[in-house]
């Protein structure tokens, strides 16, 4: 059967089997309890994947809607695989809990109902690796697939995925490999830095996986704050900033050894500027006189929110109202385009700002054409309307989801901030007195809604809706056909 969806799903399952086996091996060495379940679930998932791949073949022509569907189904397939692992290892017994945990793993969100301390090493490693691998997959999709689809203006001609994406596109086969190796290299470097900063060996690997993927899972329930070490926090800060930076940009800057490229990138300047301004705002609005550790904690929280990692250090319970609002806004903004971070991306907001300015100008000079420039490139009108459509659709999803959250026991502030946080794949939110615990507070409805929201945030809303439309299409055609024949009958 020709089906791109089948090929994607099968490939994801086949590729995830070795990861399961690897985690099972680690758990075996650690003498953990989850070795056999992991091995078995890995084998099941792998065999299923093989079966699906054998049954389906890559289609000769691939319409856009199918491509969308295969991107979404790839994410869903990963979700199912991780859910199976959670259920098999008894990490979570209820299906909804397993689903939301899997969603958090696949989308790189640091929201969990489980206690990280009580998990076996194998499962912890599986979750961290899941975040790391799916972030790697996102890079591939962002640079290789999305430009063809033009999702949310991230297309090659719109230049929103930076000029780099356009330049990369033709030769992306080899560049893709280089980007991935850069990602791996950075991860190794980060693990080494953690190790030097005094983290245990295994923890530093796991944290490095979740830092560079902007995922945020930790081996401790207190996240990075549990280590209580300034050095580790500084490493995490740098790692998160790197995770929020555009990979193609880093790649080109490092390849030529031309660090000046960072300064020349408008988006990077804005990204760093945003961090600095937010830190200043957080400090200025806090009630006490700032100390060095306050500065570090503010920087940590700001970077964690902006890069949508979701690590925690210091206590977020005592942040001032102003910092809370700033952090929420930063979550929505997210990292740079073509980075692994979630959120709406700095670049798109810059484009929107310029769009508003143009419309203001146009209200005085109605005949103004006003092309929108970003750095040296011009943003096309098509890309513009895609960005805007994406923003509106995404923000419209917040309302019903927040209502579901509040129906399931969260208060207003907690519901809205957690909806925003899960849409941006961050994880921590406000309104409960603590940064996490939102998922624990809720029942099955809230869990499913949160899982959906995270997924929408990760693959962005347009593919999800187009896929849903595609699922509905055969039905729609059938109804249309029936109606047509019915009218024909009547006419006779």
């Amino acid at each position, binding site marked *: 059967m020709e089906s791109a969806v089948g090929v994607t799903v099968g490939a994801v399952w086949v590729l995830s089997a070795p990861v399961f086996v690897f985690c099972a091996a680690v758990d075996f060495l650690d003498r953990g309890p989850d070795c056999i379940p992991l091995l078995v679930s890995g084998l099941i998932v792998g065999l299923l994947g093989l079966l699906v791949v054998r049954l389906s073949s890559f289609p000769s022509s691939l319409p*856009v*809607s199918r491509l*969308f569907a295969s991107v979404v189904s790839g994410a869903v397939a990963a979700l199912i695989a991780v859910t199976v692992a959670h259920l098999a290892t008894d990490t979570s017994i209820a299906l909804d809990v397993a689903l939301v945990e899997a969603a958090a793993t696949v989308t790189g969100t640091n929201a969990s109902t489980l206690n990280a301390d009580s998990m076996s090493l194998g499962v912890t490693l599986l979750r961290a690796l899941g975040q790391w691998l799916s972030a790697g997959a996102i890079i591939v999709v962002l640079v290789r697939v999305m430009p063809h*689809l*033009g*999702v949310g203006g991230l297309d090659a001609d719109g230049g929103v995925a930076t000029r780099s994406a356009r330049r990369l596109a033709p030769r992306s086969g080899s560049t893709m490999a280089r980007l991935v190796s850069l990602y791996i290299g950075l991860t190794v470097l980060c693990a080494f830095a953690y190790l030097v900063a005094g983290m245990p060996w295994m923890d530093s690997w796991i944290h490095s996986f979740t830092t560079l993927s902007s995922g945020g899972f930790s081996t401790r329930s207190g996240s990075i704050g549990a280590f209580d070490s300034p050095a580790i926090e500084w490493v995490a800060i740098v790692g998160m900033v790197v995770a929020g930076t555009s990979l193609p940009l880093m790649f080109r800057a490092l390849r030529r050894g031309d660090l000046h490229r960072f300064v020349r990138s408008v988006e990077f300047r804005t990204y760093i500027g945003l961090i600095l301004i937010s830190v200043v*705002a957080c400090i*200025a*609005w806090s009630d006490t006189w700032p100390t060095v550790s306050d500065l570090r904690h503010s920087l940590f929280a700001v970077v964690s929110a902006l890069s949508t990692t979701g690590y925690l250090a210091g206590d977020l319970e005592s942040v*001032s*109202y*102003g910092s*809370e*609002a*700033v952090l*929420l*806004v930063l979550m929505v903004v997210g990292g740079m385009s073509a980075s692994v971070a979630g959120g709406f991306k700095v670049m798109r907001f810059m484009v*929107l*700002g310029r*769009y*508003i300015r*143009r*419309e*203001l100008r*146009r*209200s*005085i000079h*109605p005949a103004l054409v006003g092309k929108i420039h970003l750095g040296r490139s011009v943003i096309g009108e098509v890309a513009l*309307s*895609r960005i*805007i*459509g*994406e*923003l*509106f*659709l995404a*923000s*419209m999803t917040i*309302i019903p989801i*927040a*209502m579901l959250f*509040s*129906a399931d026991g*969260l*208060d*207003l*502030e907690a*519901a*809205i*901030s957690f909806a925003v946080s899960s849409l941006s794949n961050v994880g921590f939110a*406000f309104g409960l007195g603590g940064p996490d615990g939102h998922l624990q507070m809720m029942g099955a409805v809230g869990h499913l809604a949160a899982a959906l929201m995270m997924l929408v945030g990760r693959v962005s809303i*347009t593919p999800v*809706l*187009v896929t849903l*439309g*595609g699922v509905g299409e055969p039905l729609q055609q059938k109804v249309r056909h029936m109606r047509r024949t019915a009218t024909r009958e009547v006419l006779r």
Partner: protein
Amino acid sequence: MAAAMVLSVFVALIDGGGGGFGLTAAAIVTGGIGAVCFLGSRVSPSADAALAFASVAWSWLAVSLAGTLPFLFAGVISWAHFDDALFESISGFTCTGSTILSDFGAVPQSILFYRSLTQWLGGMGLVVLAVAVLPALGIGGLDLIASEAPGPTADRLSLKVRDTARRLWLLYGAATCILAIVLFLVGMSVFDAVTHAFTTIATGGYSPHAESIAYFDSFVVELVVIAGMLFAGANFSMHWRALSDGIRAYGSVSETRWYVSLIAGACVILILVNHGELEWFQNFRESLFYAVSLGSNTGFGSSNYVMWMPAAHITLLVLMLVGGMSGSTAGGMKVLRLQVVIRYSFRELMRARHPSAVIPIRLGSGTIEEQIAAKVVGFVLLYLGLIVTGGVVLSGLGVDPLTAFSGSVSALGNVGPALGEAGPSSNFLVFPRAARVVLMMMMALGRLELFPAMLMLVASLRGLGQLQRSREQMK
């Protein structure tokens, strides 16, 4: 302005309460300054869009400044709290209805009357602004109204605006009179009936009682007020057309259908959410009242919705955000724009599926131009951006985020009450002093549909530049 204050003086005399002297003094000062300014300047021969924006915006500001005087002279608010007087005045003239008065018993009746009158006058200016001036200038895509609901809109500003204004004011005044009479018939005193009619038709929401409409505790009064708010939140040029065409005039406008279904939908959601929390009839009554009150951005209160469930608050927040129809006195970003934005987003979805398709944006039975859609989208983006900025700044000033963001929505949408601590049975003294200044600016911005207010600065700067240049030439 002076005339309005004199009217209030009469009320003071009839009522026999205090405040008469203060109002008289204020009237004299305002009238004097106004006369000097009027005689001292002449109409410039050439008026471009920016200048028109600027004159609208500046005159609004001048009126609000003058409007503070009665509060100050009558001693309701001390001179040291000039900003509070300005807040109350701006809140009045922008038809917002957020108040900083906490003790209504101590305020003379005449001042309460004057307060309602400011809203009514603000609404009067607004009707013309919303129906005739802004669409003609094409602010934020409001030229759409003309395409869908032909009525007394001005095609050419300078020629027709006077005529249009006269007709609209006639309608506005008549509606107020009818409402006042009906309110009187259902049991309000003359004073209450008139003041509430003023603020209902202006979608303002000031009430001479701290409890707002809840003071009367009568379902009939609420129904009348609901009808008034629904009327005031709808397009006035449509009302004008309905006078000749009958009820069909409403049905033919797609925005009306959206407006009514939005409020009805919100009402149903509120009833469902409040189910079990409130007794059946009480639930229906309060849900209906608040759906209409916030959907038309009036902001009257019939109970304290702060006690409701969080899901209800989200519904209310959405209503506040969207507001009434275009061409009405209601604030918010307007149903029409919501319509365009939703159509626009779903068009993008269709385009993602069929990349090379050319799909027009439909609105009602027609389609709209890309340029106008771009204007609408630009407006909505700016609107949302300002709400977020306002929310962040307010929370930075020490307000809890919920109150801050809802206050920001409420001020920019000219609603009145907010959520959190600033609910309908509270007042805006819960915001610190600096935050109230921010709120004031947001109210003015929201009322002037953002763009004129922004351009007012541009035009003024340009005017200053010209002045300097001519001076240099003189030398």
